[in-house]
């Protein structure tokens, strides 16, 4: 099959592209930097550039749309540019090119209004209640993708939740780094139960979606390891795997929420290009439960995570020389 992977310069995108190459597919990628995936043909450019996208799309059978602007703060227009307009552009080009399998990678945050999520299925995306620019624009993008779904153009949406593992800079690396500096707090009791997803399981699930989309489409699926854990336990295990001391800093939830809001405000005033150290959104994420019912996901994808949390932690420790 000829498959185009967008956003293949990140850990997940490049891993998916690599797995597809290994599975014998003819793989192209589209992103601003080189994918560094052996055997894949890179197209460099932005997903919101119709010309580049059209070129990359020519002759493809399937698309895995991973490209997104992922950040906790920043200019709303920048999020919209990639997550909404980029998705719109990729969808249009794919339909134009006669693509007949489309896997759209979204995020559980598109349906999260801030309350605890306890064993819930994938609820519909809602840009009005999603928290923060990233979630809002991803929600919008997901709705565009699902609206484009049809028998001729089947679309399946995957929402991987809190991906981690060796090489992940978004979550794993940051927590370990902060823990090393003694700046990684545990909020409240640290018992809030959260789902996570080991990186290779995420790759397997996306590859499985490429098969499944011809059978089942037009719906979102949250993808997790199906092993929710207390957030405090996850953070401690990351720290230990990364050779950092156990986090000792404990902050009451209310303090963290207030502090997060304050930091965001200050951050917005300055000319910061990087992430604020704490946001209200992050504090909320770290102090409320969010885990999911995986029955539908596993049924549709005919997939089960191959690597358990314990095995993943061992691999992480090995990665950091432990």
């Amino acid at each position, binding site marked *: 099959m000829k498959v185009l992977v967008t956003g293949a310069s990140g850990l997940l995108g490049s891993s998916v592209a690599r797995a597809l190459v290994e599975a014998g597919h003819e793989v192209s990628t589209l992103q601003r930097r080189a994918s560094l995936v052996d055997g894949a043909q890179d197209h460099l450019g932005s997903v919101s550039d119709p010309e580049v996208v059209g070129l990359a799309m020519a002759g493809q059978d399937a698309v895995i749309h991973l490209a997104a602007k992922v950040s906790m703060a920043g200019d709303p227009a920048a999020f919209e540019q990639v997550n909404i307009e980029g998705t719109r552009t990729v969808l249009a080009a794919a339909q134009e090119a006669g693509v007949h399998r489309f896997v759209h990678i979204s995020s559980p945050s598109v349906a999260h209004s801030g309350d*605890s999520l*306890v*064993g*819930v299925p994938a609820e519909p995306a809602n840009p009005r209640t999603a928290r923060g620019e990233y979630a809002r624009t991803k929600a919008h993008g997901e709705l565009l993708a699902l609206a484009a779904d049809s028998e001729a153009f089947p679309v399946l949406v995957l929402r991987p939740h809190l991906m981690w593992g060796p090489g992940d800079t978004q979550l794993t690396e940051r927590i370990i780094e902060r823990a090393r500096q003694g700046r990684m707090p545990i*909020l*409240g*009791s*640290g*018992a*809030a*139960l959260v789902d996570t997803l080991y990186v290779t399981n995420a790759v397997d699930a996306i590859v499985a979606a490429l098969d499944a989309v011809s059978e089942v489409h037009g719906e979102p699926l949250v993808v997790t390891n*199906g*092993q*929710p*854990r*207390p957030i*405090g*336990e996850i953070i*401690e*295990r990351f720290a*230990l795997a990364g050779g950092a001391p*156990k986090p000792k800093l404990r902050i009451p*939830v209310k303090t963290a929420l207030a502090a997060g809001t304050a930091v965001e405000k200050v951050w917005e005033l300055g000319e910061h290009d990087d992430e604020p150290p704490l946001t209200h959104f992050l504090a909320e994420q770290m*102090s*409320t*439960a969010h*885990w999911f*019912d*995986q*029955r539908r996901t596993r049924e549709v994808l005919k997939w089960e995570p191959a690597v358990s949390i*314990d095995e993943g932690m061992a691999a992480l420790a090995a990665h950091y020389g432990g």
Partner: protein
Amino acid sequence: MKFAHAPAALPGPLPQWDPQWSRLVTVDTVDGEHTFHVLDTLPALRAAGREPTGTILALHGNPTWSYLWRHLAAATVDAATAVEGGRVWRVIAPDQLEMGYSERLAHDGLPTTHGTGYRRIAERVTDFDAVVTRLLAEAPSGSAGAAPAGAPGAAAEAPAGHPVVTLGHDWGGVLSLTWAARHLDVVDAVISLNTAVQHTGDESLPAPLQAALAGPVLPTSTVLTDLFLRITLGLGQGPIPKEIKDAFSSPYQDAAARRGIGAFVADIPAQETHPSYAELQQLGEDIAGIDVPALLIWGPKDPVFVERYLRDLRTRLPHADIHRFEQASHLVSEDADVSGVVLRWVEERFPGQGSPAAGAAARQPADVTAGAADEPAGASASMTSEAASTADGPASDQAQMIYDALDERAGSRAVASVDMSQRPPQSITWTQLSSVVDGIARGLQQLGLQKGDRVSLLVSPGNNLTAALYAVLKAGGVAVVADAGLGPAGMTRAVKAADPQWIIGQRPGLTLARGAGWPGRRISVTPVDALGRVAFGVETSLTELSRTSATEPIRTPEPDDDAAILFTSGSTGPAKGVVYTHARLGELAAVLQWYFKVRPGTGLVAGFAPFALLGPGIGATSVTPDMSVTKPRTLTAAALADAIIAADCTMVFASPAAYTNVCATASELSEEQRAACANIELVLSAGAPVPLPLMDALAEIFPEAAIHSPYGMTEGLLLTDIDRQGVAAAEAQTRHQGVCVGTPIPRVRFAVAPLDDAGRSGRELLTGEDAVDVLGEFVVSAPHIKAGYDRLWYTDAASKRDELAGLSWHRTNDIGHIDQEGRVWLEGRLQHVLTTAEGPLGPGGVEAVVDRVPGVFRSALVGVGPEGAQVAVVVIEPDAEAPAGSRQKPGLATLELADEVRAAVAEHYSTDIAAVLSSPPFPTDIRHNSKIDRARLAVWADAVLRGEPVGKP
């Protein structure tokens, strides 16, 4: 204040209300034509293509319109469309005149107790008659004559006619019963929720009603304001949602609309001078003439319709089935599943062709392999072998009465019972015991004790209790044994539910009885002085009764008469009364005698209260060791040895807690005491499974003894048995989940009702090979299990719903599996099942493994998350004696402990443990201090794992 006439109306859109149910019906009444709003499901049934084959006529009281019956309307319509061939029940429920959405008459003034112009009881009964007669004529076969199905066998016959059943609540209860009593040619059965038939002058009205009736208050509270309505709607046990309260209040938006509520209350005949007083006396007599099946559904937390009204109804309808929802109040149909009980009861009484009740027996396989060992203690047999036949076990050509063994030994000078807690130890011979028992039994009968009278025994264990118990049983009384283990609140609730006619008690018990206002004539243990007699209302004492001379023979009971009511420990809801008949108690004694080879003269040490009571029944000499029976941990090895020596005992019965302390104090034994212990042949533990290390320690003290740990429950005290070798063999097997309790004892049959994905046990019963390794609820049958639950018709019917092989069965609520060797493995309680994505999971297996992790005192496995997608969470109660460094704070367990727990679980099970939480001390029951309240722990774990602050479970 003048009130204008207002026509009947149809309700607007209301929650849980189908507009199809609303009809306006105009009929001729005592004062001309009036229009009633009626809830009638006929149009809904016909719209679904169903024609009614039975009718329930329901009448509301307060809450004050037929919105009260919405759940029943929905349930009957659902049932009619869900089950092909079942009986189709129509519900007709009029709003009384001037109430709900029915017509309002013109009046010149407010209603008063003696005024005229407002409806009174007699007119209301004729109103009801007019409406239902008209509506019954609409569906064919309004004529009665449907024969109620008394026995299950009748169920297979063709559906009978078109039964008509009345149903009422509050004032509607008494009105519907009155109508039924006067139309027994039409009515086939009656049902009432909380109501009151008669008010006699010698008991004052309940305070809330007195207040409402007080002259000037009446119109203010009921008509001029909506106070009465609001108070009523506040009587629910849980808060009633606002939209439901609004729906109840919707026809009563202003004073004029509320006039009927005032009239209703004003017609309560509190005094003999009241215009309705004579009518009420008459209808009371009429109701006593009702001879069709009856069901009383009661919410005991009702401040108005208190216990004595139920007692009065029971007297008038002695044949009535009763179901008490202990947690429900006046609004019993809002608090509890009333429509479930009603529907089940009418279905059982009047089964339709092809209804579940009628077809169940035929669909089940006829052959059953009894899961039974065929030899006494110690031997085990394969469940799948051909052996197990009902011929095993004690011979039972003739029913054995529990006092037979006592009678047989009446001439023996040998010791029957020794109480080592007395100084000096108090011995009593068989002759003495027999004579005291007979004296008390005669005395009770001379005092007026009738067969079936309930006698509450508030006496602590010892010779006095033993004598009182056997006397009550022999005299045909029903012994109500509510023990202190239920806690004061639980005990009060239990005694109130059983409603004894007599109380025999010591001072603490009598004080409690007086304080809580329990009913019943009072008898003390030892004589009390004149002052005490007045203070406690005591008539006489056991001491005095025991001296009653043998002028006439004792009128003894029949085998099928009720003998005793015991109570469950109440760890999964209010304690339930469990009824044993004499036949079943006799069977229990027989199986104990036979299975554990108790011979005349066998001496047993009874360190566990129930066995002390059974001693005389099995003809054994029982010795109560010097200990506090309610605190088993006070039994020392030396006290136990002294008890053994006192009667050359060869058997010891005690609880695991008592044995733990015996082992801990074994080093204090003298040579003589050690030698006495070496004579013991049987060590029996009861109350909870015994861990192997404790059994091993016991084997050191009692080197010659077989060590047994039977499994049972209040409803079936002796079901399976396992010995030390059996426990060791089971522990060596890692494949099985749960706690092995051994094989069924002879004459006990085990079946398994498999669990579905939602963790509920289904209708299907598996036995023999089919049942092997299937997770399900244990369903048991034996001659010595309970006769029924007391005044819990619904619970009883549900527990006995199986008819496999024509036997009577008991749903135990315990879950687990039976292995290839026929061994029973417990995995928890039905209501504690986790429903994970991988299927249902019993908590017992994982808990047994986690309990052995160092630093864990005890554990509970609970599920959090929605049904079918739950994840498993281990909650531990840390060992209080753990070294300071490894102490667990409430909340998330340390990473080290979580690792150990997960590793231990992973050795046996594939279950993913999402979290390990450390809890403050577990909530447990009072009686055993061991039954963990997992429901509360699950709520706590859920909150903690949502990220909420860590509080207490």
